[in-house]
């Protein structure tokens, strides 16, 4: 089925879309350009000046690289746990009847606690219970931060799972487990991917909670923050430039993969 937006509306929609893209791309693209500028003073390089000076210096920045590793590990584990836990929470939401609303509010409650406070309070709890700070404690803090997001994202995607599909599967002999694996899971896959991505990005960029909960190895935002405040060299731009390009590569890879393999199912009806 085709909807007719009209030329003017289409132009408007695309214009806003492009405006949004410009807004989110202005900073990282600017920095990317800066990272190829050999000058100390950040600014757009002339074409003739392009250089990899700062990238060459990157491997020597042990602190940054260690922090990046730490952040990637924490973000990955957080994303896995948050997605898994939120999936359980979402499934419970649909199983529950009367107490659905309370459950919903319980799960999203932690997202309303300001980060500084949550970080400090959780760190206090850990200290008092004799739990030593490490990447695990950071993960615990990030998990609670990411879970409400992941939970809501997954709930949103559950709209694709009509009850009648599950009923039909049961009719064909599917146990609850099979209904889940064969029907629910594939239908909410976009939601799971989004939830994973959200959790990953939330964790990767989280500063305050990480600061309070980290062990001796800080995460990337904490180290970057320190560097920015204490005389960083343009290597940090090379760092973000590298991260930017790496994410372009990763995302492009995933996109290409889904172009190849994806079934273009759109409107389940």
């Amino acid at each position, binding site marked *: 089925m085709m909807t007719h937006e009209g030329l003017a509306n289409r132009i408007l929609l695309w214009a806003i879309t492009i405006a949004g893209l410009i807004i989110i791309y202005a900073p990282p693209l600017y920095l990317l350009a800066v990272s190829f500028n050999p000058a100390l003073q950040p600014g757009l390089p002339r074409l003739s000046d392009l250089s990899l000076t700062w990238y060459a210096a990157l491997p020597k920045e042990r*602190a940054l690289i260690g922090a990046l590793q730490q952040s990637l590990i924490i973000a990955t584990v957080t994303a896995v746990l948050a997605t898994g836990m939120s999936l359980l929470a979402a499934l419970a939401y649909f199983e529950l009847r009367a107490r659905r609303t309370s459950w919903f509010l319980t799960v999203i409650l932690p997202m309303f606690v300001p980060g500084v406070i949550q970080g*400090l309070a959780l760190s206090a709890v850990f200290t008092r219970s004799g739990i*030593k700070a490490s990447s695990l404690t950071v993960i615990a803090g990030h998990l609670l931060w990411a879970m409400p997001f992941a939970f809501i994202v997954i709930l949103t995607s559950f709209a694709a799972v009509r009850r009648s599909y599950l009923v039909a599967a049961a009719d064909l002999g599917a146990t609850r487990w099979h209904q889940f694996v064969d029907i629910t899971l594939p239908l909410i896959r976009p939601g799971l991917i989004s939830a994973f991505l959200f959790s990953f990005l939330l964790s990767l960029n989280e500063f305050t909670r990480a600061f309070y909960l980290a062990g001796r190895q800080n995460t990337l935002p904490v180290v970057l923050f320190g560097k920015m405040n204490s*005389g960083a060299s343009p290597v940090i731009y090379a760092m973000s430039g590298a991260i930017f390009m790496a994410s372009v590569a990763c995302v492009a890879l995933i996109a290409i993969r889904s172009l190849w393999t994806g079934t273009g199912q759109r409107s389940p009806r």
Partner: protein
Amino acid sequence: SRLAAQGAASVAFWATATLDIGDKWQEFATQNGVTPEFTDNGNDLGPVIARLAAGNANDLFDIGGFQGGAEKELARQGVIIPWDVAKIPNYESLWQWAKDIPYLKYDGKQYGIPAVVNADSIIYRPDKLGKIDSYGAIFDPKLKGRVAMEDAWINSAIFTAMYLKESENQPIADPGNLSESELGLVMEFLIKHKSDGQFRTFWNGWEQGVQLVADQEVDAMTGWEPIVYEGRKRGLQVEYAAPVEGYEGWGNNMVLLKGAGDRGVSDTAHTFVNGLLGGFYGCELGQARGYLVPTDNNVVYAKAHPEEYKPDDVEKLGEHVKAKFAGKIYWQNARPDNFQLYEEWWQKLRNA
């Protein structure tokens, strides 16, 4: 741990990123037999104190390095323990005025060892403003919208107080420790100027400070001298003022965390701090950022290693800072007696 030199003991060093010398710790470890495991503490005193008081810092770290002033508070809470300067032979080499920084001691015990000191004033562009020798420039209506101060009362209140005391003859006893009424005077003054649109912004952090000057957002701002060095490296015409009102002195002090004592690494910690004052570290830090460890050991070390450090430069840096401290100095204080009031006023300023 990656840096751990063979056989060297290790301490967890939790400090402002400025104090990190990266790869050079290896050399430090070889010389001193102690390897620091360095962790950036983010340079904001508030969260650092919070982590010490309520959080996990004592589980993790042995030595803290951050802006001085809170030693008394931390000592009272028992989260830091006193140094035994007898175990730090190099302590004696510290310049006297550095040893005299007001808040290093509490209850007669030595809680802070100044590892880095400097005195701050105004960064400005002589190409636009000519020569500046007073904080009055910051409050000069002609520069409306072209000046900035730091986004922290810990610095901005003291600068303003110095100006009011020295140049406007206001009754202020110690700009670093304002009474309730003095504070009111200072803050009202700031609030008035803020409301007039005097300040382009209140800045925060090194890189942003550098950019403010470099991008011509401001022509003058209170700030740290290394920003001037950095600006010059980037080809800017920037100067650091020697104001008639004097400088704001500050120290980045080493404190010994209670956890170090509990874990029995207190002696190693002393060895480590002794190492910081030993000359090598001062040379490195001076070369990297223009920061100064307040001891003559730097020059001694540079002279002993002329192939690596220029003794003249090291000496010049030392003399330069010393010269600042020879004049009027008001010490920055993270915990003035009325510090809760400072915060209240700061909110008023924000919301004005």
